[in-house]
């Protein structure tokens, strides 16, 4: 059977990232670790509050796993190729650089997300828990936002250690201080509160679930995250296109 050349290159990139036991370990773990959704749902007396808690990254195992898998792909596979110069063998393949970038982006970032989406939606479907789908949307947007930040740092700095530390610091600062800013914004009813939704929307989701009030400015954060991650994506694309090895 003759396969197209692009597919063969895609296969090489895919096989490099997901060798034999990777998927077999990651996907069932993601699926089974979703029992925390049920556990939090029961603990919160079948309220939305428990579900929101269960979907916060770092509390949710499957979300953290998807994030960590993408982080490892970007920094320690693609990034490592760039730092060591072995990316040259991929660049010399008969394929455009843009296509190569899209293939690596798909394998590095989109696939872990698709694993997470598939396992979570399968679990939600089978368990019959009415999970509000905006929780999925919020995580989706946040996931691509953070991974694009990591991708840009990985393409900007020529060392795996620096990129790991730097991206961890940036994301930690965004998440923690964004959460604090959101908390005090809600407390003081400040007009600047919508800005904090960009970095950590979960504080607002928790507030919404507890107080039963609608937070109207949550969309501000989601739209801004989409725009910022698109900008980061195109900057990364440009950087990859003109990269000199």
């Amino acid at each position, binding site marked *: 059977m003759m396969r197209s050349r692009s597919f063969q290159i895609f296969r090489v990139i895919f096989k490099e990232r997901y060798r034999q036991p990777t998927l077999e370990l990651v*996907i*069932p773990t993601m699926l089974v670790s979703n*029992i925390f959704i049920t556990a939090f749902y029961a603990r919160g007396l*079948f309220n939305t509050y428990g579900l929101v808690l269960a979907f916060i990254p770092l509390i949710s195992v499957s979300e953290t796993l998807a994030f960590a898998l993408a982080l490892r792909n970007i920094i320690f596979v693609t990034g490592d190729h760039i730092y060591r110069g072995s990316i040259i063998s991929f660049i010399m393949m008969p394929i455009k650089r843009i296509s190569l970038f899209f293939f690596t982006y798909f394998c590095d970032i989109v696939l872990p997300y698709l694993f997470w989406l598939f396992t979570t939606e399968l679990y939600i479907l*089978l*368990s*019959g828990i009415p999970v509000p789908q905006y929780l999925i949307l919020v995580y989706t947007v946040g996931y691509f936002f953070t991974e694009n930040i990591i991708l840009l740092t990985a393409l900007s700095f020529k060392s795996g250690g620096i990129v790991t530390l730097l991206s961890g610091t940036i994301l930690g600062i965004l998440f923690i201080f964004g959460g604090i800013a959101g908390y005090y914004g809600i407390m003081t009813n400040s007009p600047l509160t919508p800005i904090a939704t960009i970095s950590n929307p979960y504080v607002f989701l928790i507030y919404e679930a507890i107080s039963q009030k609608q937070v109207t400015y949550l969309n501000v954060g989601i739209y801004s995250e989409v725009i910022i991650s698109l900008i980061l994506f195109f900057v990364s694309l440009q950087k990859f296109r003109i990269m000199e090895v």
Partner: protein
Amino acid sequence: MKFGLLTTIGLSLLVLSLLSINSPIHSYVSISNPYSIKIPNIAYVNARLLENNSNVTVYAKLVHNGNVENIVKLPYYLELTPGIWEFSIYNETFPITLTKVINATVVNKSNGIVYVYEYQKIEKYQEIVTTKNATYPIALEVTIYKVNILQYKTIAEILGVLLLFIDIILLAFRFIRDNHKL
């Protein structure tokens, strides 16, 4: 022999369909306004309604899926079936101590002179009050003693077994193909 991806997904689906969360979860809710709780199909829940003060007789109204199920005297124990339950206080009967001011006169005679004192006296008395207002909140003790992980267990089981079989068949095909090459 390599374990395939489908085998592991099928096994995890089987595991999820067989297991349930069995550690009981206790929770207390104080009710003065109507309180509603939504019980999903996967949960097995008991509830106990308790009055807060032993002098108070409380009747609570239980609404299940919008229909008035019962009006019960507390304390009351029930099993919460799946659906939306709403608990509210129907009426409360309790004694209250009230005071009223009455005028009293005291006549005192001494040395042929009559003294008449008039004064006001505060008297306490008790009355039984029945009210629809929730003066004393009631306590609801919810015990979730079992939560199934999956609602559609049979689908998950069938899917899991199917995935296992597909993987075994694929494995057999691969085995045959590899042997042919040799």
